[in-house]
């Protein structure tokens, strides 16, 4: 039951993507509705995994291990643990919203657009469930193609530059990861296990790799993931991609695509290379902290709302990386929940920016002011998204940031309070730039004539924003419900690192 739900979650988007190609491209309504129905069906399929999911184990569940290319031992091996389940739910939940957000703004080549969007979902789902390095790599690269087109065809003014930059940045990292994947397979062969890309086997082999090689493998994997996250100083593709992408593209990019990187860090770097993770936790955390502060400071001086939100992502993802490399249960748990939170709140912020942009076709903060008066309902929802992103207690953002900071504070690997202290300034800066932006856009006098007659949210926009608000509040009030899902798997990862390093549990 759970296994078939997993397979459906993976393959419904692919089938939908292909099915769209058979619809006449002039039937725009049919295209939109088909895409939406497909994505909702996928979400239902993903929910179908919940009843059968066993929270009390860290083992991979709903696993399938099918031969694919026996000569290279590459297999169709999939399965999920709590971390991947949470991210799968996030992906499948955000997809219908992203599709709804495209109904209005996307008005050329609709067929190709929705087809690519669903193909993108197929790739992202695959990344979250692959338990085979080869399969993982295939999905990882598969994502590039649809995203490249989404930015390049439907993007803004500098779309070409942004699309190519996105593609090449990601490709550089991932190809080095490919070399590492092959190297790892041969290392397994050297130990008599045969060339393999089976993650479950490699997990046992990884810790046996001598540190001087392991570090390089760790870096090859990490580079690929850190570009995707993106971690300072590899973040420069992100603002370009975000600003040029259409709203739905930004939403997917922020909500899911960036999480592929942080997910990869947990799934591959921590699990495969525990010694190197412990060894390099310090330097990476320093980069994460720099990213937190730098992202926040740069966000503060932006005049373009979308760019501001994009830089806030750099800052927020810094918390996630810091949490992961605190290598404590609290930190990693916080990172996992922060991934979901960031997906929801930043995704929603991008939707709100999209709402404004559709009406005014500008994202300059100075063009706005006093919007609350003409769009009161929008103001409420925008405020919720903004406060969630700031990390207001009671909304989802708080719990994630709190836990990652606790993790960084108590981490025996980082062994210094400085990380947490400097990082927490990021929270304060976040309040500054988001509240200030909100104030300039929404409050004050509505003295720009172009803004005098903006209509408030329409039905489609409500349907995009309200479901997210439900989860923002739900996670904020009852985080346990969600964190229980990933608790065991996180604990297992952290313990594997601690065992190697010889730290005992502090609690």
């Amino acid at each position, binding site marked *: 039951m759970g296994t078939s739900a997993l397979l459906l979650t993976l393959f419904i988007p692919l089938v939908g993507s292909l099915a769209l190609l058979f619809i006449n491209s002039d039937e725009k309504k049919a295209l939109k509705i088909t895409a939406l129905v497909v994505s909702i069906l996928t979400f239902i399929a993903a929910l179908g995994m919940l009843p059968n999911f066993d929270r009390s184990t860290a083992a991979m569940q709903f696993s399938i291990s099918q031969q694919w290319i026996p*000569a*290279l031992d590459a297999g169709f091996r999939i399965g999920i643990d709590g971390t991947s389940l949470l991210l799968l739910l996030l992906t499948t939940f955000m997809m219908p919203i992203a599709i709804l957000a495209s109904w209005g703004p996307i008005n050329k080549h609709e067929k190709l657009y929705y087809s690519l969007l669903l193909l993108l979902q197929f790739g992202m789902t695959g990344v979250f469930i692959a338990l085979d390095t080869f399969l993982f790599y295939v999905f990882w*690269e*598969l994502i590039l193609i649809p995203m490249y087109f989404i930015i390049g065809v439907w993007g803004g003014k500098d*779309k070409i530059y942004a699309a190519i930059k996105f*593609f090449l940045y990601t490709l550089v990292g991932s190809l080095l990861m490919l*070399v590492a994947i*092959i*190297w790892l397979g041969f290392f397994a062969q050297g130990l008599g296990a045969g060339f393999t890309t089976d993650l479950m086997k490699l997990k046992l082999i990884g810790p046996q790799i001598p540190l001087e090689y392991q570090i390089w493998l760790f870096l090859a994997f990490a580079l690929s993931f850190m570009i995707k996250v993106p971690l300072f100083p590899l973040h420069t593709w992100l603002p370009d991609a975000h600003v040029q992408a259409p709203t739905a593209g930004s939403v997917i990019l922020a909500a899911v695509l960036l999480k592929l990187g942080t997910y990869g860090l947990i799934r591959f770097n921590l699990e495969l290379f525990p010694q190197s993770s412990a060894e390099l936790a310090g330097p990476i955390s320093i980069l994460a902290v720099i990213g937190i502060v730098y992202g926040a400071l740069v966000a503060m001086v932006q005049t373009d709302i979308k760019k501001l939100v994009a830089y806030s992502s750099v800052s927020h993802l810094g918390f996630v990386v810091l949490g992961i490399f605190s290598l404590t249960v609290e930190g990693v748990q916080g990172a996992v929940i922060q991934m979901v939170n960031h997906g929801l709140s930043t995704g929603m912020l991008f939707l709100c920016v999209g709402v404004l942009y559709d009406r005014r076709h500008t994202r300059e903060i100075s063009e706005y002011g006093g919007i609350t008066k003409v769009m009161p309902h929008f103001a409420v929802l925008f405020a919720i998204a903004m406060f969630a992103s700031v990390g207001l207690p009671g909304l989802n953002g708080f719990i994630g940031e709190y836990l990652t900071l606790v993790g960084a504070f108590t981490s025996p690997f980082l062994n210094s309070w400085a990380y947490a202290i400097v990082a927490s300034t990021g929270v304060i800066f976040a309040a500054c730039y988001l509240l200030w932006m909100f104030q300039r856009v929404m409050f004050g006098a509505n003295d720009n004539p172009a803004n005098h007659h903006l209509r408030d949210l329409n039905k489609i926009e409500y349907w995009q924003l309200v479901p997210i608000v439900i989860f923002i509040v739900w996670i904020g009030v009852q985080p346990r419900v969600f964190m229980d899902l990933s608790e065991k798997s996180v604990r297992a990862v952290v313990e594997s690192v601690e065992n190697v390093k010889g730290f005992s549990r502090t609690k």
Partner: protein
Amino acid sequence: MNIDIFGSLPLIVIWLALGAVGIVIQAFVRENTRLVFGYYVGTLAVTALLAIVTAGHKGYAFEGMITLGGYANYFDVLFCVTGMLTMFAARPYLQRENVELDEFYTLLVSSVAGMMLMAHANSLITLFIGIELMSLSFYVLTGFMRTNIRSVEAALKYFLLGAFSTGFLVYGMALVYGSTNSLQYDVISKVVLGGGVFFPALFVVGVTLLTVGLSFKIAAFPFHQWAPDVYEGAPTVVSAYMSTAGKAAAFSAFIPVFAALMPSGAVNGALSNLPLMVAIIAAITMLLGNITAIAQSNVKRMLAYSSIAHAGYMLIGIVTGGIAGQDAIVYYATVYTFMQMGAFVIVGLLERNNEHFLDMKDYAGLHHKQPVLAALMAMFMFALAGIPPFAGFFGKYLLFMTAIESGYTWLAIVGVVSSVISAYFYLGLIVRMYFQDPSGEPLTARPGLAGITLIVSSAAIILLGVFPQVLLNIFHSW
């Protein structure tokens, strides 16, 4: 006399079809291109079929001059299929350019016969005959547009440089013969293994010269200069054919020659550097081809430089040698054939009067004018760049795998870096097709028979990308 008639059937059939029947048809039935076209497509199909049937029949024939079965037969099939795909694409192309003559098909099939001989060669003499037959056919095919100055120039250039490189090849063969007393691969291999080389120094020079000669045929650095000019000037379908089948043929010769000259386990101080030399050639070829391709504004030249780079990738398999290296080369040669063929055929469909619509600029907004062709072209570009799930990715995976397995991790990294570089210009074309607005007049392209080529190529790229095992199983069972 040891003549294995059954095993040699593919070779015998294509030779008879060409030399006996084909000539008669052309002598008595003038100006009937349709008949000749159909006849030669049939010939290639029958030959391919026979090659499949006799694949399991291994051994030597004609006094050890040729080998039978196994890889040679696999290459037979590949050459015949490529030949057929080229013919399908060529007919509408030649008709449009008003140069459809019977001789085109005859020359094409005679080059296929030459390639098959190269793949089947077990003696340097056989190899030489095969190479010459293929190359001479290529020279004429390149200059097939007699009234077009570029085509003629390309043919002349190709001929002169090709003749020059043949000199290296023959000189190398002579020196190898002088120091091992044999022209037969298996005998040479035994002599090298037994340490019975007469003049080791001359042997090394001979092997190097042979390498030079073969490097010219695959257009590897530093013997690649002819490729862009020739591919640009030649009729586009011919470029498609030469850059795929021609390259695959050169590799089909490269593999057994190197296996014979450098058998694994041979102890020879001077020769131990040869793999490293080839590795360096491979690395430079990959980088140079891809970097130069970035600067091209002509699509044919861009594809020509990219074909140089792909030769570099395939050389990785030569460096590492062994079964794994062979598998990787053969796999890559196969998928590369489909990718490159597909891309060139689309270029051929779009170009006008042999000169126009070859600029990258002309592809702006192609997506609006020709959505299907643009989508296929985008797919071929992604495949050439090595993005999964297309077959090009798996080919590279295999090659990088062999490199890392045999300790050439740096070569794999160079390959990876040059792949990133290549992504830039492959994407550049996609950018023009999809992200830029169309300019110029609307475009009509009637694929006709070339549609078959495109369908086969694109299906192969997707299927071999998702199920690479199919091809690997064939390698291992043949």
